[in-house]
Protein backbone atom coordinates (compact mmCIF):
# COMPACT_ATOMS: atom_id res chain seq x y z
CA UNK A 1 0.00 0.00 0.00
CA UNK A 2 1.39 3.39 -0.92
CA UNK A 3 2.11 6.01 1.70
CA UNK A 4 -0.69 8.26 0.50
CA UNK A 5 -3.33 5.50 0.52
CA UNK A 6 -2.28 4.45 4.00
CA UNK A 7 -2.50 7.98 5.35
CA UNK A 8 -5.89 8.66 3.82
CA UNK A 9 -7.15 5.26 5.02
CA UNK A 10 -6.15 6.07 8.59
CA UNK A 11 -7.88 9.46 8.50
CA UNK A 12 -11.03 7.98 6.96
CA UNK A 13 -10.93 5.10 9.47
CA UNK A 14 -10.86 7.62 12.27
CA UNK A 15 -13.85 9.51 10.84
CA UNK A 16 -15.88 6.29 10.59
CA UNK A 17 -15.04 5.34 14.16
CA UNK A 18 -16.15 8.77 15.38
CA UNK A 19 -19.43 8.46 13.48
CA UNK A 20 -20.04 5.10 15.14
CA UNK A 21 -19.61 6.71 18.55
CA UNK A 22 -21.99 9.48 17.48
CA UNK A 23 -24.63 6.92 16.52
CA UNK A 24 -24.43 5.20 19.90
CA UNK A 25 -24.73 8.58 21.65
CA UNK A 26 -27.74 9.43 19.47
CA UNK A 27 -29.50 6.22 20.51
CA UNK A 28 -29.17 6.88 24.24
CA UNK A 29 -30.23 10.54 23.96
CA UNK A 30 -33.65 11.97 24.61
CA UNK A 31 -34.76 14.70 22.33
CA UNK A 32 -34.91 17.85 24.42
CA UNK A 33 -32.59 20.83 24.29
CA UNK A 34 -30.98 20.26 27.70
CA UNK A 35 -29.94 16.74 26.73
CA UNK A 36 -28.71 17.79 23.30
CA UNK A 37 -26.60 20.67 24.63
CA UNK A 38 -25.60 19.34 28.04
CA UNK A 39 -26.00 15.52 27.96
CA UNK A 40 -28.52 15.97 30.79
CA UNK A 41 -25.80 17.30 33.15
CA UNK A 42 -24.55 13.74 33.66
CA UNK A 43 -20.90 13.77 32.52
CA UNK A 44 -18.29 11.88 34.62
CA UNK A 45 -14.72 12.84 35.61
CA UNK A 46 -12.72 11.21 32.82
CA UNK A 47 -15.07 12.39 30.10
CA UNK A 48 -15.36 15.95 31.47
CA UNK A 49 -11.61 16.22 31.90
CA UNK A 50 -10.85 15.06 28.40
CA UNK A 51 -13.69 16.80 26.64
CA UNK A 52 -12.58 20.13 28.11
CA UNK A 53 -8.99 19.27 27.38
CA UNK A 54 -9.53 18.15 23.78
CA UNK A 55 -11.63 21.23 23.11
CA UNK A 56 -8.92 23.43 24.54
CA UNK A 57 -6.18 21.98 22.37
CA UNK A 58 -7.20 22.52 18.79
CA UNK A 59 -4.39 22.37 16.28
CA UNK A 60 -1.97 24.34 18.43
CA UNK A 61 -0.68 21.32 20.34
CA UNK A 62 0.52 19.46 17.28
CA UNK A 63 1.25 22.20 14.75
CA UNK A 64 1.42 25.77 16.03
CA UNK A 65 3.07 25.03 19.39
CA UNK A 66 5.85 22.74 18.15
CA UNK A 67 6.50 25.19 15.29
CA UNK A 68 7.12 27.98 17.80
CA UNK A 69 9.29 25.66 19.93
CA UNK A 70 11.29 24.79 16.80
CA UNK A 71 11.85 28.44 15.95
CA UNK A 72 12.16 30.01 19.41
CA UNK A 73 12.80 27.34 22.05
CA UNK A 74 10.59 25.41 24.47
CA UNK A 75 9.43 28.20 26.84
CA UNK A 76 5.87 27.83 25.58
CA UNK A 77 5.70 24.87 27.97
CA UNK A 78 5.88 27.41 30.79
CA UNK A 79 3.20 29.58 29.20
CA UNK A 80 0.96 26.51 28.94
CA UNK A 81 1.69 25.50 32.52
CA UNK A 82 0.89 28.91 34.00
CA UNK A 83 -2.07 29.39 31.71
CA UNK A 84 -3.76 26.02 31.61
CA UNK A 85 -2.23 24.20 34.54
CA UNK A 86 -2.65 26.81 37.27
CA UNK A 87 -4.61 29.91 36.18
CA UNK A 88 -7.28 28.02 34.30
CA UNK A 89 -7.62 25.54 37.18
CA UNK A 90 -8.22 28.43 39.59
CA UNK A 91 -10.80 29.95 37.22
CA UNK A 92 -12.29 26.48 36.84
CA UNK A 93 -13.04 26.68 40.55
CA UNK A 94 -14.00 30.37 40.81
CA UNK A 95 -16.15 30.57 37.68
CA UNK A 96 -16.76 26.95 36.71
CA UNK A 97 -17.84 25.52 40.04
CA UNK A 98 -19.93 28.58 40.85
CA UNK A 99 -21.65 28.41 37.47
CA UNK A 100 -22.26 24.70 37.97
CA UNK A 101 -23.90 25.32 41.36
CA UNK A 102 -26.07 28.12 39.97
CA UNK A 103 -26.87 26.07 36.87
CA UNK A 104 -27.97 23.09 38.96
CA UNK A 105 -30.35 25.31 40.88
CA UNK A 106 -31.76 27.40 38.04
CA UNK A 107 -31.39 25.06 35.06
CA UNK A 108 -29.31 27.39 32.88
CA UNK A 109 -27.85 26.09 29.63
CA UNK A 110 -25.75 29.06 28.49
CA UNK A 111 -23.78 31.91 30.06
CA UNK A 112 -25.91 34.55 28.38
CA UNK A 113 -29.09 32.90 29.68
CA UNK A 114 -27.66 32.92 33.20
CA UNK A 115 -26.70 36.62 33.08
CA UNK A 116 -29.93 37.64 31.33
CA UNK A 117 -32.03 35.98 34.03
CA UNK A 118 -29.99 37.35 36.94
CA UNK A 119 -30.13 40.92 35.65
CA UNK A 120 -33.70 40.64 34.32
CA UNK A 121 -32.52 41.81 30.92
CA UNK A 122 -33.20 40.34 27.51
CA UNK A 123 -30.84 42.89 26.03
CA UNK A 124 -27.92 41.84 28.22
CA UNK A 125 -28.62 38.24 27.27
CA UNK A 126 -28.57 39.15 23.59
CA UNK A 127 -25.45 41.28 24.03
CA UNK A 128 -23.40 38.52 25.66
CA UNK A 129 -24.53 36.02 23.01
CA UNK A 130 -23.78 38.43 20.17
CA UNK A 131 -20.32 39.32 21.51
CA UNK A 132 -19.53 35.61 21.93
CA UNK A 133 -20.69 34.71 18.43
CA UNK A 134 -18.74 37.62 16.96
CA UNK A 135 -15.47 36.14 18.25
CA UNK A 136 -16.46 32.49 17.79
CA UNK A 137 -17.44 32.58 14.11
CA UNK A 138 -14.00 33.52 12.71
CA UNK A 139 -12.31 31.16 15.15
CA UNK A 140 -14.27 28.22 13.73
CA UNK A 141 -13.33 29.41 10.27
CA UNK A 142 -9.63 29.24 11.22
CA UNK A 143 -10.08 25.62 12.33
CA UNK A 144 -11.71 24.73 9.01
CA UNK A 145 -8.89 26.41 7.12
CA UNK A 146 -6.36 24.45 9.20
CA UNK A 147 -8.07 21.14 8.59
CA UNK A 148 -8.43 21.83 4.88
CA UNK A 149 -4.74 22.69 4.62
CA UNK A 150 -3.71 19.63 6.64
CA UNK A 151 -5.69 17.36 4.32
CA UNK A 152 -4.16 19.01 1.27
CA UNK A 153 -0.70 18.59 2.78
CA UNK A 154 -1.35 14.99 3.73
CA UNK A 155 -2.52 14.04 0.25
CA UNK A 156 0.37 15.87 -1.40
CA UNK A 157 -2.05 18.24 -3.13
CA UNK A 158 -4.24 15.44 -4.56
CA UNK A 159 -7.15 16.76 -2.49
CA UNK A 160 -7.57 20.48 -3.22
CA UNK A 161 -8.00 22.90 -0.33
CA UNK A 162 -11.69 23.60 -0.95
CA UNK A 163 -12.50 19.86 -1.12
CA UNK A 164 -10.62 19.16 2.11
CA UNK A 165 -12.39 21.95 3.94
CA UNK A 166 -15.74 20.85 2.46
CA UNK A 167 -15.20 17.23 3.54
CA UNK A 168 -14.37 18.28 7.09
CA UNK A 169 -17.36 20.65 7.21
CA UNK A 170 -19.78 17.99 5.96
CA UNK A 171 -18.45 15.51 8.46
CA UNK A 172 -18.72 17.96 11.35
CA UNK A 173 -22.31 18.86 10.49
CA UNK A 174 -23.32 15.21 10.22
CA UNK A 175 -21.59 14.41 13.45
CA UNK A 176 -22.81 17.26 15.63
CA UNK A 177 -26.36 16.97 14.31
CA UNK A 178 -26.39 13.30 15.26
CA UNK A 179 -24.44 13.19 18.44
CA UNK A 180 -25.00 16.34 20.51
CA UNK A 181 -22.93 17.04 23.59
CA UNK A 182 -22.85 13.40 24.70
CA UNK A 183 -21.29 12.11 21.47
CA UNK A 184 -18.90 15.05 21.24
CA UNK A 185 -17.72 14.41 24.80
CA UNK A 186 -17.23 10.71 24.16
CA UNK A 187 -15.14 11.16 21.02
CA UNK A 188 -13.13 13.88 22.78
CA UNK A 189 -12.24 11.36 25.46
CA UNK A 190 -11.16 8.72 22.97
CA UNK A 191 -9.13 11.33 21.09
CA UNK A 192 -7.55 12.75 24.22
CA UNK A 193 -6.36 9.35 25.43
CA UNK A 194 -5.24 8.47 21.93
CA UNK A 195 -3.25 11.68 21.45
CA UNK A 196 -1.61 11.39 24.83
CA UNK A 197 -0.39 7.84 24.12
CA UNK A 198 0.73 8.63 20.59
CA UNK A 199 2.78 11.61 21.70
CA UNK A 200 4.72 9.64 24.30
CA UNK A 201 5.38 6.81 21.84
CA UNK A 202 6.69 9.43 19.41
CA UNK A 203 9.04 10.80 22.09
CA UNK A 204 10.34 7.31 22.87
CA UNK A 205 10.91 6.64 19.18
CA UNK A 206 12.78 9.85 18.47
CA UNK A 207 14.86 9.68 21.65
CA UNK A 208 15.86 6.07 21.01
CA UNK A 209 17.29 7.18 17.67
CA UNK A 210 19.22 10.21 18.95
CA UNK A 211 20.69 8.85 22.20
CA UNK A 212 18.15 9.97 24.78
CA UNK A 213 17.38 13.47 26.07
CA UNK A 214 21.08 14.11 26.73
CA UNK A 215 21.90 13.34 23.10
CA UNK A 216 19.10 15.63 21.92
CA UNK A 217 20.23 18.38 24.30
CA UNK A 218 23.85 18.03 23.15
CA UNK A 219 22.76 18.42 19.51
CA UNK A 220 20.69 21.44 20.48
CA UNK A 221 23.69 22.88 22.39
CA UNK A 222 25.62 22.79 19.09
CA UNK A 223 22.95 24.27 16.84
CA UNK A 224 20.83 26.54 19.06
CA UNK A 225 22.44 26.88 22.52
CA UNK A 226 20.15 29.85 23.28
CA UNK A 227 17.13 27.48 23.33
CA UNK A 228 18.35 25.89 26.55
CA UNK A 229 18.48 29.20 28.41
CA UNK A 230 15.32 30.51 30.01
CA UNK A 231 13.90 33.53 28.18
CA UNK A 232 14.93 35.35 24.99
CA UNK A 233 14.05 38.41 22.95
CA UNK A 234 10.94 36.55 21.89
CA UNK A 235 10.01 35.09 25.27
CA UNK A 236 10.13 38.20 27.41
CA UNK A 237 8.52 38.18 30.88
CA UNK A 238 5.84 40.54 29.49
CA UNK A 239 5.11 38.09 26.67
CA UNK A 240 4.90 35.07 28.97
CA UNK A 241 2.63 36.81 31.48
CA UNK A 242 0.39 38.56 28.92
CA UNK A 243 -0.12 35.43 26.87
CA UNK A 244 -0.80 33.18 29.84
CA UNK A 245 -3.24 35.58 31.53
CA UNK A 246 -5.15 36.64 28.41
CA UNK A 247 -5.59 33.10 27.10
CA UNK A 248 -6.49 31.58 30.48
CA UNK A 249 -9.17 34.23 31.06
CA UNK A 250 -10.30 34.06 27.45
CA UNK A 251 -10.68 30.30 27.49
CA UNK A 252 -13.23 30.40 30.33
CA UNK A 253 -15.58 32.52 28.22
CA UNK A 254 -15.25 30.52 25.00
CA UNK A 255 -18.80 29.17 24.57
CA UNK A 256 -17.74 25.53 24.22
CA UNK A 257 -15.61 25.66 27.40
CA UNK A 258 -18.01 27.78 29.43
CA UNK A 259 -20.90 25.49 28.57
CA UNK A 260 -18.95 22.55 29.95
CA UNK A 261 -19.17 24.17 33.37
CA UNK A 262 -22.84 23.17 33.34
CA UNK A 263 -22.48 19.52 32.31
CA UNK A 264 -20.77 17.78 35.26
CA UNK A 265 -22.76 15.00 36.86
CA UNK A 266 -21.71 15.89 40.41
CA UNK A 267 -19.44 18.21 42.38
CA UNK A 268 -16.99 15.32 42.74
CA UNK A 269 -16.45 15.31 39.00
CA UNK A 270 -15.47 18.99 39.07
CA UNK A 271 -13.16 18.51 42.05
CA UNK A 272 -11.28 15.60 40.53
CA UNK A 273 -10.88 17.37 37.19
CA UNK A 274 -9.55 20.44 39.02
CA UNK A 275 -6.89 18.40 40.82
CA UNK A 276 -5.78 16.47 37.73
CA UNK A 277 -5.53 19.54 35.54
CA UNK A 278 -1.83 20.54 36.06
CA UNK A 279 -0.67 16.95 35.58
CA UNK A 280 -2.62 16.52 32.36
CA UNK A 281 -1.23 19.78 30.98
CA UNK A 282 2.33 18.62 31.71
CA UNK A 283 1.77 15.18 30.21
CA UNK A 284 0.68 16.62 26.91
CA UNK A 285 2.68 19.80 26.36
CA UNK A 286 6.11 18.80 27.64
CA UNK A 287 6.54 16.05 25.04
CA UNK A 288 4.97 17.87 22.05
CA UNK A 289 6.89 21.11 22.56
CA UNK A 290 10.16 19.32 23.35
CA UNK A 291 9.83 17.36 20.12
CA UNK A 292 9.57 20.67 18.26
CA UNK A 293 12.62 22.03 20.09
CA UNK A 294 14.75 18.92 19.57
CA UNK A 295 13.95 18.99 15.85
CA UNK A 296 15.98 22.21 15.64
CA UNK A 297 19.06 20.39 16.97
CA UNK A 298 18.54 17.37 14.72
CA UNK A 299 18.88 19.47 11.58
CA UNK A 300 15.27 19.02 10.49
CA UNK A 301 14.48 21.43 7.65
CA UNK A 302 10.97 22.82 7.61
CA UNK A 303 9.83 24.34 4.29
CA UNK A 304 7.87 27.60 4.37
CA UNK A 305 4.28 26.97 5.47
CA UNK A 306 4.88 23.38 6.60
CA UNK A 307 4.71 22.03 10.17
CA UNK A 308 7.71 20.65 12.02
CA UNK A 309 6.14 17.72 13.85
CA UNK A 310 5.00 15.67 10.80
CA UNK A 311 8.41 16.20 9.20
CA UNK A 312 10.27 15.10 12.33
CA UNK A 313 8.08 12.02 12.66
CA UNK A 314 8.42 10.99 9.05
CA UNK A 315 12.20 11.17 9.59
CA UNK A 316 12.32 9.01 12.72
CA UNK A 317 9.16 6.85 12.82
CA UNK A 318 7.38 4.48 10.38
CA UNK A 319 4.91 5.90 7.85
CA UNK A 320 1.83 4.43 9.52
CA UNK A 321 2.77 6.00 12.84
CA UNK A 322 3.29 9.48 11.36
CA UNK A 323 -0.09 9.11 9.65
CA UNK A 324 -1.68 8.21 13.00
CA UNK A 325 -0.33 11.41 14.53
CA UNK A 326 -1.65 13.51 11.64
CA UNK A 327 -5.02 11.81 12.00
CA UNK A 328 -4.89 12.63 15.72
CA UNK A 329 -4.09 16.27 14.99
CA UNK A 330 -6.94 16.53 12.51
CA UNK A 331 -9.16 14.90 15.08
CA UNK A 332 -8.09 17.60 17.54
CA UNK A 333 -9.10 20.32 15.12
CA UNK A 334 -12.43 18.69 14.48
CA UNK A 335 -13.15 18.09 18.14
CA UNK A 336 -12.61 21.77 18.86
CA UNK A 337 -14.72 22.78 15.92
CA UNK A 338 -17.66 20.50 16.57
CA UNK A 339 -17.84 21.60 20.21
CA UNK A 340 -17.75 25.21 19.07
CA UNK A 341 -20.48 24.59 16.51
CA UNK A 342 -22.69 22.97 19.11
CA UNK A 343 -22.23 25.78 21.63
CA UNK A 344 -22.43 28.51 19.01
CA UNK A 345 -25.71 27.10 17.82
CA UNK A 346 -27.10 26.94 21.35
CA UNK A 347 -26.14 30.58 22.00
CA UNK A 348 -27.79 31.59 18.76
CA UNK A 349 -31.02 29.64 19.14
CA UNK A 350 -31.47 30.02 22.87
CA UNK A 351 -30.28 33.56 23.48
CA UNK A 352 -30.99 35.35 20.22
CA UNK A 353 -33.66 33.44 18.28
CA UNK A 354 -35.87 32.39 21.18
CA UNK A 355 -36.02 35.64 23.15
CA UNK A 356 -36.16 37.99 20.17
CA UNK A 357 -38.01 36.02 17.48
CA UNK A 358 -40.07 33.14 18.87
CA UNK A 359 -40.56 33.15 22.67
CA UNK A 360 -42.99 30.21 22.50
CA UNK A 361 -40.34 27.77 21.23
CA UNK A 362 -40.61 24.36 22.97
CA UNK A 363 -37.59 22.46 24.34
CA UNK A 364 -38.10 19.67 21.81
CA UNK A 365 -38.39 22.00 18.85
CA UNK A 366 -35.36 23.90 20.14
CA UNK A 367 -33.26 20.72 19.97
CA UNK A 368 -34.20 20.36 16.29
CA UNK A 369 -33.65 24.02 15.50
CA UNK A 370 -30.23 23.82 17.18
CA UNK A 371 -29.29 21.13 14.70
CA UNK A 372 -30.34 23.38 11.85
CA UNK A 373 -28.27 26.13 13.46
CA UNK A 374 -25.19 23.89 13.43
CA UNK A 375 -25.60 23.26 9.70
CA UNK A 376 -26.11 26.94 8.87
CA UNK A 377 -23.22 28.02 11.08
CA UNK A 378 -20.79 25.46 9.65
CA UNK A 379 -21.77 26.20 6.06
CA UNK A 380 -21.38 29.93 6.60
CA UNK A 381 -17.90 29.58 8.14
CA UNK A 382 -16.97 27.19 5.31
CA UNK A 383 -18.00 29.69 2.64
CA UNK A 384 -16.09 32.41 4.48
CA UNK A 385 -13.01 30.17 4.71
CA UNK A 386 -12.88 29.83 0.91
CA UNK A 387 -12.17 33.50 0.31
CA UNK A 388 -10.03 33.87 3.47
CA UNK A 389 -11.03 37.44 4.28
CA UNK A 390 -8.20 39.20 6.12
CA UNK A 391 -10.55 40.92 8.54
CA UNK A 392 -12.10 37.67 9.73
CA UNK A 393 -8.70 36.02 10.11
CA UNK A 394 -7.63 38.97 12.26
CA UNK A 395 -10.71 38.59 14.45
CA UNK A 396 -10.13 34.83 14.77
CA UNK A 397 -6.52 35.36 15.79
CA UNK A 398 -7.55 37.82 18.48
CA UNK A 399 -10.52 35.76 19.71
CA UNK A 400 -8.88 34.83 23.02
CA UNK A 401 -8.35 38.49 23.86
CA UNK A 402 -11.94 39.26 22.85
CA UNK A 403 -13.36 36.56 25.11
CA UNK A 404 -11.04 37.55 27.96
CA UNK A 405 -12.84 40.92 28.06
CA UNK A 406 -15.99 39.14 29.29
CA UNK A 407 -14.37 37.25 32.16
CA UNK A 408 -13.94 39.92 34.84
CA UNK A 409 -17.45 41.42 34.56
CA UNK A 410 -18.84 37.87 34.85
CA UNK A 411 -16.61 37.11 37.84
CA UNK A 412 -17.75 40.32 39.54
CA UNK A 413 -21.40 39.46 38.85
CA UNK A 414 -21.02 35.94 40.24
CA UNK A 415 -19.61 37.07 43.59
CA UNK A 416 -20.77 40.62 44.23
CA UNK A 417 -24.48 40.98 44.82
CA UNK A 418 -24.45 44.74 44.33
CA UNK A 419 -23.55 44.39 40.64
CA UNK A 420 -26.19 46.13 38.53
CA UNK A 421 -27.40 45.66 34.99
CA UNK A 422 -25.98 49.03 33.98
CA UNK A 423 -22.64 48.06 35.47
CA UNK A 424 -22.55 44.84 33.43
CA UNK A 425 -23.50 46.57 30.18
CA UNK A 426 -20.89 49.29 30.75
CA UNK A 427 -18.17 46.77 31.65
CA UNK A 428 -18.85 44.56 28.64
CA UNK A 429 -19.31 47.33 26.07
CA UNK A 430 -16.44 49.45 27.38
CA UNK A 431 -13.86 46.68 27.35
CA UNK A 432 -15.01 45.35 23.96
CA UNK A 433 -14.79 48.82 22.40
CA UNK A 434 -11.32 49.40 23.81
CA UNK A 435 -10.07 46.04 22.56
CA UNK A 436 -11.78 46.20 19.15
CA UNK A 437 -10.45 49.68 18.48
CA UNK A 438 -6.94 48.40 19.12
CA UNK A 439 -7.41 45.38 16.88
CA UNK A 440 -8.85 47.32 13.95
CA UNK A 441 -7.46 50.85 14.05
CA UNK A 442 -3.89 51.00 12.74
CA UNK A 443 -1.29 52.21 15.21
CA UNK A 444 -0.65 55.94 15.10
CA UNK A 445 2.10 57.74 16.94
CA UNK A 446 1.64 61.09 18.57
CA UNK A 447 4.28 63.51 19.75
CA UNK A 448 3.75 64.90 23.22
CA UNK A 449 6.60 67.21 24.08
CA UNK A 450 9.79 65.23 23.53
CA UNK A 451 8.29 61.75 23.74
CA UNK A 452 6.61 59.73 21.01
CA UNK A 453 3.58 57.77 22.16
CA UNK A 454 1.98 54.98 20.14
CA UNK A 455 -1.83 54.91 20.11
CA UNK A 456 -3.99 51.90 19.23
CA UNK A 457 -0.95 49.60 19.45
CA UNK A 458 -1.57 45.92 20.18
CA UNK A 459 0.97 45.98 22.98
CA UNK A 460 2.38 48.72 25.16
CA UNK A 461 5.91 48.11 26.45
CA UNK A 462 5.47 44.43 25.63
CA UNK A 463 2.18 44.15 27.55
CA UNK A 464 -0.85 42.98 25.56
CA UNK A 465 -3.55 45.65 25.31
CA UNK A 466 -6.11 42.93 26.14
CA UNK A 467 -4.91 43.17 29.75
CA UNK A 468 -5.83 46.86 29.78
CA UNK A 469 -9.25 46.05 28.37
CA UNK A 470 -9.83 43.45 31.07
CA UNK A 471 -8.91 45.97 33.76
CA UNK A 472 -11.17 48.61 32.23
CA UNK A 473 -14.04 46.09 32.07
CA UNK A 474 -13.67 45.26 35.76
CA UNK A 475 -13.41 48.94 36.78
CA UNK A 476 -16.46 49.93 34.71
CA UNK A 477 -18.53 47.04 36.05
CA UNK A 478 -17.74 47.89 39.66
CA UNK A 479 -17.77 51.69 39.22
CA UNK A 480 -21.05 51.93 37.31
CA UNK A 481 -22.66 49.40 39.68
CA UNK A 482 -21.74 51.64 42.61
CA UNK A 483 -23.22 54.68 40.85
CA UNK A 484 -26.49 53.07 39.74
CA UNK A 485 -29.31 51.34 41.55
CA UNK A 486 -30.58 47.96 40.42
CA UNK A 487 -33.74 47.92 38.30
CA UNK A 488 -36.88 46.40 39.81
CA UNK A 489 -36.62 43.14 37.88
CA UNK A 490 -32.99 42.34 38.78
CA UNK A 491 -32.73 39.26 40.99
CA UNK A 492 -29.56 39.79 43.01
CA UNK A 493 -30.10 36.58 45.00
CA UNK A 494 -29.99 34.39 41.88
CA UNK A 495 -26.28 33.61 42.25
CA UNK A 496 -26.46 32.89 45.98
CA UNK A 497 -26.27 29.16 46.44
CA UNK A 498 -26.35 28.89 50.25
CA UNK A 499 -28.00 25.97 52.02
CA UNK A 500 -31.59 27.19 51.82
Amino acid sequence: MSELTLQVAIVVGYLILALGVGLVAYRVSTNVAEDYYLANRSIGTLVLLFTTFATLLSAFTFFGGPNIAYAQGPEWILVMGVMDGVLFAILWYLIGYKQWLVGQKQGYVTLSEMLGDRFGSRRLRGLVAAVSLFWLFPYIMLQQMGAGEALTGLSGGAIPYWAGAALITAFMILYVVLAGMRGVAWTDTIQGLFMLSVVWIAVAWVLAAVGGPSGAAAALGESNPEFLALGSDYYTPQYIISTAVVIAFGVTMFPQINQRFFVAGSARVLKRSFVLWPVLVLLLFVPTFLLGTWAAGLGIEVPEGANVLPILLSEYTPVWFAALVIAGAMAAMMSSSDSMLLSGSSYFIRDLYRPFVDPTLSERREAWLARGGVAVFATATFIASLSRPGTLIEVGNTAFGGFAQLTLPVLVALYWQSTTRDGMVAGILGSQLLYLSHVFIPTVTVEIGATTLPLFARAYGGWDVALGGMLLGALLTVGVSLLTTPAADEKSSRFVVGAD
Partner: protein
Amino acid sequence: MSRRIRTLLWVLTATVLVVFSVPWFWWGDSRTAAGIPLWLWWHIGWMGVATIVFAVFVRTDWDRYMGVGDV
Protein backbone atom coordinates in the same frame (compact mmCIF):
# COMPACT_ATOMS: atom_id res chain seq x y z
CA MET B 1 -7.49 29.61 62.81
CA SER B 2 -9.92 32.41 62.07
CA ARG B 3 -11.81 32.40 58.82
CA ARG B 4 -10.15 35.58 57.65
CA ILE B 5 -6.61 34.30 58.10
CA ARG B 6 -7.52 31.04 56.44
CA THR B 7 -8.89 32.83 53.39
CA LEU B 8 -5.85 35.06 53.27
CA LEU B 9 -3.59 32.00 53.32
CA TRP B 10 -5.42 30.43 50.39
CA VAL B 11 -5.18 33.62 48.35
CA LEU B 12 -1.49 33.83 49.19
CA THR B 13 -0.94 30.17 48.26
CA ALA B 14 -2.73 30.60 44.93
CA THR B 15 -0.65 33.70 44.17
CA VAL B 16 2.62 31.92 44.94
CA LEU B 17 1.50 28.96 42.81
CA VAL B 18 0.87 31.22 39.82
CA VAL B 19 3.92 33.45 40.21
CA PHE B 20 6.53 30.74 40.67
CA SER B 21 5.27 28.44 37.93
CA VAL B 22 8.07 30.16 36.05
CA PRO B 23 11.44 30.18 37.86
CA TRP B 24 12.09 33.89 37.26
CA PHE B 25 15.24 33.73 39.42
CA TRP B 26 16.85 31.46 36.80
CA TRP B 27 16.27 33.89 33.93
CA GLY B 28 18.91 33.27 31.26
CA ASP B 29 20.19 30.13 33.01
CA SER B 30 20.97 27.29 30.61
CA ARG B 31 22.12 24.50 32.93
CA THR B 32 20.62 21.11 32.13
CA ALA B 33 20.16 17.85 34.02
CA ALA B 34 19.63 14.60 32.10
CA GLY B 35 19.23 16.61 28.91
CA ILE B 36 16.36 18.75 30.23
CA PRO B 37 16.94 22.40 31.24
CA LEU B 38 16.86 22.95 35.01
CA TRP B 39 14.15 25.59 34.62
CA LEU B 40 11.94 22.97 32.98
CA TRP B 41 12.56 20.52 35.84
CA TRP B 42 11.50 23.26 38.25
CA HIS B 43 8.30 23.77 36.27
CA ILE B 44 7.56 20.03 36.18
CA GLY B 45 8.05 19.79 39.95
CA TRP B 46 5.98 22.92 40.48
CA MET B 47 3.02 21.46 38.58
CA GLY B 48 3.29 18.46 40.92
CA VAL B 49 3.15 20.84 43.89
CA ALA B 50 0.12 22.56 42.34
CA THR B 51 -1.68 19.23 42.08
CA ILE B 52 -0.98 18.46 45.75
CA VAL B 53 -2.16 21.92 46.86
CA PHE B 54 -5.31 21.57 44.73
CA ALA B 55 -5.97 18.15 46.26
CA VAL B 56 -5.68 19.60 49.79
CA PHE B 57 -7.98 22.48 48.87
CA VAL B 58 -10.59 20.10 47.45
CA ARG B 59 -10.55 18.07 50.67
CA THR B 60 -10.76 21.03 53.02
CA ASP B 61 -12.21 24.33 51.89
CA TRP B 62 -13.67 23.68 48.42
CA ASP B 63 -17.23 24.44 49.49
CA ARG B 64 -16.46 27.04 52.15
CA TYR B 65 -16.42 29.96 49.71
CA MET B 66 -19.49 28.94 47.75
CA GLY B 67 -21.98 29.10 50.58
CA VAL B 68 -22.74 25.38 50.45
CA GLY B 69 -21.88 22.58 52.88
CA ASP B 70 -20.08 23.25 56.16
CA VAL B 71 -20.54 26.99 56.53
